[in-house]
């Protein structure tokens, strides 16, 4: 928790309404996302109870499981969900683009768009992950066959859940996380997980303060929980009798009993469904950050790769990664987390303010500039212009450190002098290299001019090559050695 963000939370308490902690949107929003609000049966291992799903506010489809303990009905639910999710996913496989790889020697293709799933909260992401886990190994033949779209749904849900772990990915987004990335409320992180309360703080309904709206949203009889867990009171008082009535119903009354369960669950889901679209509207009103599109390219790459994998009859994702796969995945996630943090700071002065406070970035005005300075101490003379900045930020950057500026990402700046000046200000002299064209004369505009206000930071947006990992067959003995062959049968006992 940075002090800049914490201060925003304190301001939210005082003003009674959430405060912005971002000036741009840090995630990609699809033109047509698939909103999915799942509910699970209490006490069961991720047994689906209902879901409201659709890609437009007026296009909500309600799926329910009248007997959540009945496994056939669970897989019937999965098949129904697949009938919505799979066409939605496939709808993004119409057009692709060619990307040059290997320095133009080869080409690969990627879809122009990718599917995006929105769920209310991180528990919703977990629900989809477990639903993916419980369906992707199912067999379409044998003793307990399921419809072929069920394991396919499982593989796609697993893909989405894995993307959700990837920092900066927008393939599967939890609404509460997306909102808290852009606003600080006057309540704690635990309370922010409750979507109605969070939206109460961000956009309180007329006449209420954020705190009042949040308090109102905590009453499950007014504001049903955003799932997947249901309100126990609702379970005991309304749902349990309705499920019993359905179980006891005969041919004549079954339709009516089913309609009653459907009505109850629709009432529980509709408020959350509406909040999802309201949250989406708030996020859409923010301008996207400059590097959001590039991150979405990563999602499109991952989508294309997974679609190709499925086309080639690829195996379902394993229950557990092997040693090499796990190490590579961890490395990928760590790199993504670092890149994501840097990119958000580059895109957003309000995020950069956190780094300015900790001395990892500074904003100053150019006082002097020597754009023609040439360093001829080496074998060849090189263009090394210097600029002097005056900043009021706390400067903790050591002399000799390499900095870069979000507005000039291709240029490096080495700290030459750091001199304290009057009024707590600091003078910083930087020597620039790169991004100025060839030769000993800087191309116009490539060296900052006197009077410009610039941000320099130790955060670097430069590409960091990935590490090399051995193949699975060469797993070192420290990591268990090569895996035994034929051990991983993706079959599971049906109990």
């Amino acid at each position, binding site marked *: 928790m940075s*002090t800049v963000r*914490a201060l925003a939370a304190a301001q939210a308490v005082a003003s009674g309404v959430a405060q912005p902690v971002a000036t741009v949107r840090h995630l990609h929003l699809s033109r047509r996302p698939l909103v999915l609000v799942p509910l699970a049966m209490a006490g069961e291992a991720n047994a689906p109870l209902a879901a409201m799903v659709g890609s437009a506010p007026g296009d909500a489809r309600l799926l329910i499981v009248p007997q959540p303990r009945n496994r056939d009905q669970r897989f019937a639910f999965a098949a129904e969900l697949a009938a919505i999710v799979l066409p939605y996913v496939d709808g993004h496989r119409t057009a692709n683009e060619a990307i040059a790889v290997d320095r133009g020697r080869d080409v690969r293709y990627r879809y122009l768009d990718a599917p995006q799933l929105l769920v209310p909260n991180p528990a919703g992401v977990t629900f989809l992950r477990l639903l993916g886990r419980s369906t992707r190994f199912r067999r379409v033949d044998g003793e307990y066959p399921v419809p072929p779209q069920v394991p396919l749904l499982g593989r796609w849900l697993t893909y989405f859940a894995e993307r959700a772990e990837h920092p900066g990915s927008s393939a599967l987004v939890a609404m509460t996380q997306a909102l808290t990335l852009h606003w600080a409320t006057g309540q704690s*992180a635990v309370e922010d997980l409750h979507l109605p309360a969070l939206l109460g703080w961000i956009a309180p309904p007329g006449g209420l303060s954020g705190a009042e709206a949040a308090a109102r949203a905590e009453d499950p009889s007014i504001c049903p929980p955003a799932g997947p867990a249901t309100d126990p009171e609702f379970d005991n008082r309304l749902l349990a009798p309705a499920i019993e009535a359905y179980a006891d119903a005969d041919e004549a009354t079954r339709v009516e009993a089913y309609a009653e369960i459907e009505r109850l669950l629709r009432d529980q889901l509709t408020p959350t469904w509406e909040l999802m679209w309201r949250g989406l509207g708030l996020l859409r009103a923010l301008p996207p950050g400059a590097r959001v599109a590039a991150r979405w390219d990563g999602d499109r790459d991952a989508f294309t790769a997974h679609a190709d994998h499925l086309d080639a009859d690829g195996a379902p994702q394993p229950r557990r990664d092997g040693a090499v796969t796990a190490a590579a995945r961890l490395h990928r996630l760590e790199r993504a987390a670092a890149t994501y943090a840097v990119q958000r700071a580059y895109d957003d002065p309000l995020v950069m303010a956190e780094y300015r406070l900790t001395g990892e970035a500074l904003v100053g005005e150019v006082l002097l500039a020597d754009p023609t300075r040439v360093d001829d101490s080496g074998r060849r003379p090189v263009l090394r212009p210097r600029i002097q900045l005056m900043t009021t930020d706390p400067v903790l950057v050591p002399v000799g450190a390499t900095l870069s500026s979000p507005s000039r990402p291709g240029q490096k700046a080495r700290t030459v002098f750091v001199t304290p000046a009057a009024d707590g200000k600091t003078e910083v002299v930087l020597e620039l290299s790169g991004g100025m064209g060839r030769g000993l004369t800087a191309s116009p505009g490539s060296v900052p001019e006197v009077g410009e206000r610039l941000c320099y930071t130790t955060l670097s947006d430069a590409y960091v090559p990935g590490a090399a990992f051995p193949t699975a067959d060469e797993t070192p003995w420290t990591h268990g050695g090569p895996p035994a062959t034929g051990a991983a049968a993706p079959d599971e006992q049906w109990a």
Partner: protein
Amino acid sequence: MTDTEQRLAAIRGDAPPKRHNARTIAALTGNPGCTRRAVLDGAGVDKPALAERVGFPARFGQSRFAITRGNVFEAQVKADGGAELLRLVAERLGVPVPAAASWTDLGDGDDPATRARRSATLLTEALSPTGSHPAESAALFDHPMLGLSVAGQRVHLEPDLVAARLGGRFHVVEIKSFPVIDGQADPAKLAAAAVQSAVYVLALRELLTARGHDPQLVSHEVLLVCPRDFSNEPVAHLLDVRRQLLVVRRQLDRMDRLDTLLADVPADFTADPAADPAALADSLARVPARYAPDCLASCELAYFCRHEARGQTGTLGRPVREALGGIADVGEVLALAGGEPATDPERAEAAALLRTAARLRADALATA
């Protein structure tokens, strides 16, 4: 009745003290710095009634579905005199599965004290007096009635649990219906189960000590029996609860020193749910609480304390409070951030941080 007991009875009102169970004792280990909670729990106050009375009812409902599922799974695991359970436990412990084991249900009878005596007798029966020659035969004990001393009072615990004696050692076996999927369980549920089991281990150890046996005969390795993946097939996992044992022990010791805490509590303090709500709220306000957002998940009075603590940085969570230089009051934070000089020299550093943060935030919002 000791002085302390009399004070606690006065605080509680007419009602008999609320009985503790492993869950409430486990909950005590959260937020150990809260005096209000220590006093109320020590006195055995009916906190749900109290919270309702002061206008902040707790929301700790349990779904009927979850209860049913828990009972069905437990019955399934314990079926056939625990034959399946014995196999699971023995295999997990890596000892040969005994051909047979005695199954003793200690759940009969009404009077807790009598039941506790019976449990103690039967549990220690097969142990030699010195404990040096542990009994070799395997035995399972269902629903043992255990006792623990909480805040100077004997509390009876009635766990839904099996104490397994295998290879001469006792193991606490906890049957939980949350699933373990690919070797992973919900971290929050697992943590709660571990603390609860630690309470049972402590109680069992106290029982053995009281009968002159070595408390170490009760293993710190607890067996957690859960459904595997998405099936109903039970699977046993070993859980090392040494850390939880320390935490529970420490908190119980702290509650034993309740008289020290009570010294700072006003003499006319009452938490009797029958009292006038306004008077109750005033009375509660005189015993300091230490509200943290975690309380919402474990303490019935949390909504009251949260309301009382509004305007405090602590309600935003500890990381936020620390990021704000540890300053408790939101008003003071904003005043310092706005440039007011810190009156306390110890806060000069925090004030400078907040001022800079406010300037940078305003700067960034203005340039955007």
